[in-house]
């Protein structure tokens, strides 16, 4: 069944396919990391994962969430900022996770709905609790750890 985000999509690709393409492109271009789609392996809530979300309003409206294992959060922060792992602070990991969510969300919406008017809210750090109810979900594996992407539509 199509979700609210599927309606009016300007692509033949499915939402998970677009999520994979965009996540790969974002990680390679901005974070100097590689990722491959895998079947879902997201964990139960764990203190050592971090998460960020971006809400979007317009047509469509909803929320995109990313969850990263701590190892991946450190690796993408290193790639993004050009620093060594022992230099990365917890705050920088959270900030970079929010940027990752922001870029994946913006790129997905621009690809899915290039003619729509959609406004993105500022990305937020959220509890790392997996909840894909009513949404589309895709897990990605990198050499450094796991990334879980969830896009949920609101009506």
């Amino acid at each position: 069944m199509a979700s609210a985000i599927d309606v009016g999509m300007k692509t033949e690709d499915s939402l998970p396919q677009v999520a994979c393409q965009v996540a790969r492109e974002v990680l390679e271009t901005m974070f100097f990391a590689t990722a491959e789609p895998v079947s879902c392996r997201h964990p139960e809530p764990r203190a050592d994962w971090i998460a960020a979300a971006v809400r979007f309003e317009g047509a469509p409206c909803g929320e995109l969430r990313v969850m990263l294992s701590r190892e991946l959060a450190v690796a993408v922060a290193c790639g993004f900022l050009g620093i060594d792992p022992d230099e990365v602070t917890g705050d920088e990991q959270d900030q970079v996770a929010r940027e990752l969510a922001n870029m994946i969300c913006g790129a997905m919406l621009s690809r899915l709905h290039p003619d729509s008017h959609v406004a993105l809210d500022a990305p937020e750090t959220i509890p790392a609790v997996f909840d894909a109810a009513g949404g589309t979900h895709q897990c990605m594996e990198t050499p450094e750890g796991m990334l879980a992407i969830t896009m949920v539509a609101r009506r």
Partner: protein
Amino acid sequence: MAFTVLIVDDSPVMRAFIRRVMRLAGFEEAWYLEAGNGEEGLASLAVQHVDVILTDINMPRMNGEDFLRELRKNPAYERIPALVISTDATHERVDRMLELGAQGYISKPFPPEALREELDRILGAYDGIGD
């Protein structure tokens, strides 16, 4: 070529990333000013001349659209080239920012070469850079 860049973005790590990409793109001699929103950007411009502005759109207090409007209303700033760097690549948004006076628009994700090409194009069209 030495020149001064004003980076306007509410994310400190994004500002750091842009400085890094500028170096990777070959702009080793640039000087940087940073601002967390359009208001802070205007305050920086009041005390320091800059050669080019790189601005985000979604920011608190004064967003990139209002920042560009204020820039183009002020004769002292209207000729400073501005390049938008944003996650939003919808057609409406890009068109609106260009109508408001942005000289270029880069959507994230982008490679260092894309920033180099845009800055070469923009700076090449203006006189007096690095004076």
